[in-house]
């Protein structure tokens, strides 16, 4: 897949250690600077800088007409973003929490996803919808959900999820430059994890997955917040002499499965990890495709570690609900036992 080369890259600021939150803020700032048609819009994104401060300082520097505090209505945010896109803008919408995307679901699915197709390409929909998603922060209801599979299921939408500061910085800018609508899922519980970011190093293509740890025993594939969990599991497994290969899927629609197929052909085993419920999900899709492509290489059935097929539980139970290092290792062991 070809990387959308970023137009007129911003001035380098030197390598620095940043959090995912800061990297997203820097990415938004770079996009706002690069293209006057880029808008940031959502609830509380202005003065407050968003509830997670991802948009901190942007309204101050770019003004109320580039960074819009919108009325409290998600259907309104996405519906008007569509109109703005028709007018030539590139809106970046913030949905405050995962569970609040549903009031905007109709506009996302009925209009945003379909307009390019319906207009036979005459209408472009360069709209990004940022969604802080997933659990693990001890929040009340509707603040911890993983609804990404619902959007991957919809033709016309693209869905990506970042897992680290470098990807956060680049993927967000790439998504904003993409002429298709992109749902951008941010791992909120990892917002404050840090790594080095060199804004001059070239990014990898947006719609591609990546091997983040090489190993030969079992392939483990995840995205967003679960990538860190899998890397930790791989470290633990290495101490027991098992080398796990970890793949960060990065893009969920379209899926980039070639690196997964290659890896499974080498390891013969695949464990998929996601916080979302298992049934009818992205992991189901990957499992199906892998058994089709890699049938003769598989030494074990494709196994999954996921949230349960229930509503997200009260936060005191989220440690039980969310896949953790132990659950990943347990399923890795089961895979190896075949």
């Amino acid at each position, binding site marked *: 897949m070809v990387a959308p080369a970023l137009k007129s890259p911003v001035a380098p600021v030197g390598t620095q250690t940043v959090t995912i939150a800061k990297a997203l803020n820097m990415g938004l700032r770079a996009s706002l600077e690069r293209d006057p048609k880029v808008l940031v819009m959502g609830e509380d994104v202005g003065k*407050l800088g968003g509830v997670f401060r991802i948009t901190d300082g942007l309204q101050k520097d770019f003004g109320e007409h580039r960074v819009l505090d919108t*009325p409290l209505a998600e259907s309104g945010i996405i519906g008007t973003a569509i109109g703005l896109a028709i007018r030539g803008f590139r809106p970046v919408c913030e949905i405050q929490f995962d569970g609040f995307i549903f009031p905007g679901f109709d506009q996302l699915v009925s209009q945003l996803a379909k307009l390019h197709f319906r207009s036979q390409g005459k209408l472009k929909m360069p709209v990004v919808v940022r969604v802080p998603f997933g659990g693990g922060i001890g929040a009340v209801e509707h603040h911890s959900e993983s609804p990404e599979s619902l959007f991957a299921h919809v033709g016309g939408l693209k869905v990506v999820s970042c897992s680290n500061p470098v990807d956060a910085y680049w993927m967000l800018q790439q998504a904003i430059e993409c002429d298709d609508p992109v749902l951008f899922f941010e791992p909120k519980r990892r917002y404050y994890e840090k790594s080095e970011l060199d804004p001059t190093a070239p990014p990898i293509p947006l719609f591609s997955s990546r091997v983040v740890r090489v190993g030969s025993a079992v392939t483990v594939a995840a995205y967003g917040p679960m990538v860190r969990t899998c890397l930790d599991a791989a470290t633990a497994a290495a101490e027991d002499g098992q080398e796990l290969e970890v793949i960060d899927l990065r893009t969920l629609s379209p899926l980039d499965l070639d690196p997964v197929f290659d890896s499974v052909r080498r390891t013969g085993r695949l464990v998929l990890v996601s916080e979302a419920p298992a049934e009818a999900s992205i992991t189901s899709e990957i499992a199906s495709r892998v058994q089709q492509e890699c049938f003769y290489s598989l030494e074990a059935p494709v196994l999954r570690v996921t949230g349960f097929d229930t509503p997200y539980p009260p936060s005191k139970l989220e440690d039980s609900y969310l896949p953790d290092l132990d659950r990943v290792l347990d399923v890795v062991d089961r895979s190896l036992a075949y």
Partner: protein
Amino acid sequence: MSPEQWTRPENEGTTGPPAATAAKPTREQVIAGLRATSEGGADLVQLLTPEGQRVEHPDFDIDIPDAELRDLYRDMVLVRRADREGNALQRQGQLGIWVPLLGQEAAQIGAGRAVRPQDMIFPSYREHGVAWCRGIDPTELLGVFRGTDHGSWDPNSTRFHLYTIVIGNQCLNATGYAMGQRFEGKVGDPDGEATMVFFGDGATSQGDVHEAMVWSAVYDAPLVFFCQNNQWAISEPVERQSRVPLYRRASGYGFPGIRVDGNDVLASLAVAKWALDECRQGNGPVLIEAFTYRMDAHTTSDDPTRYRLADEQEAWKLKDPIERLRVHLVREQIADQGFFDGIDAEADELAVRLRNFCFNMPEPPPTRIFSEVYAEETPQLVAQREDYLQYLAGFADEAIAGGVR
């Protein structure tokens, strides 16, 4: 009372567009009108001034016996104390989050005490005072914020629905419930049933709230929309949601809209009683805008210093709902020092009880994840639960605390 009477602002013509000569208010004037905090005014029902003076109102004057006045005071003090304790428990790490009601006690107690046992209530997530009026002990609210449950009270027996966090959702649910009351013939006499739904000023921007108003109007649902306009939706001021005072929106749907001083418990009670009676009689729906102010942060996760002006908060402090009733009770010699001391002691006890309850709350067992997902359990979930329990059993040799590994 005819709807028109309460939906037509005094300075507007009765029909047709404004005369070409009429000066159009500027954007700034419109916004200033939305945020106006001056008392009185033709469109603000008030029975008790911020100075604790009882004032007359031509349509909503009610006679409240002394004992009931004292009860209203007690309600507000106890609810405020429970709220402050909730805040403190969050600060101590005992609760994940707390949603303060500070400053909104009068709106909630006024509305809550107007509701009768046969009525139904649909709250948002800040209605701790209304819950109190429904006989729900403040300890029962803690689970939601501690993360042990999604609401432990029984919505059927308390007739107080679960807290709703998705902004606006409950308005449509309330509309449906009220439609049901009408379909079952429970309206049309003074002892009929009604429903009251609570939401904020920000919520009025949501499609669900608009749809609820459309539906309740066309089905004559016996529903009181009780909007607590506390001036802010997290960081967004009310002018980010509307260009007309919220109560006036009702006229567009065809039912009465009234603005009441939400820091005046007597006016809130009187207007809410009237509106519920309208519904009981079959004349509903009604929109009440309780004009009030959120004195604390939006939630314990919020930082209001980023967006709020200190002098605005200072101005609202002078309108404190509890203080004004207290002054009234003293001035009219309805209550003496012994009464106030007694209430304060009761508040202290409540705070201690709440704290101890919170410290001792049991953690839910992991099986709770799988229970009550469906009315008819699915084999698939049974299998998931069995699998998970088996997995947990593998850690049996490790310490198991409170059922959670």
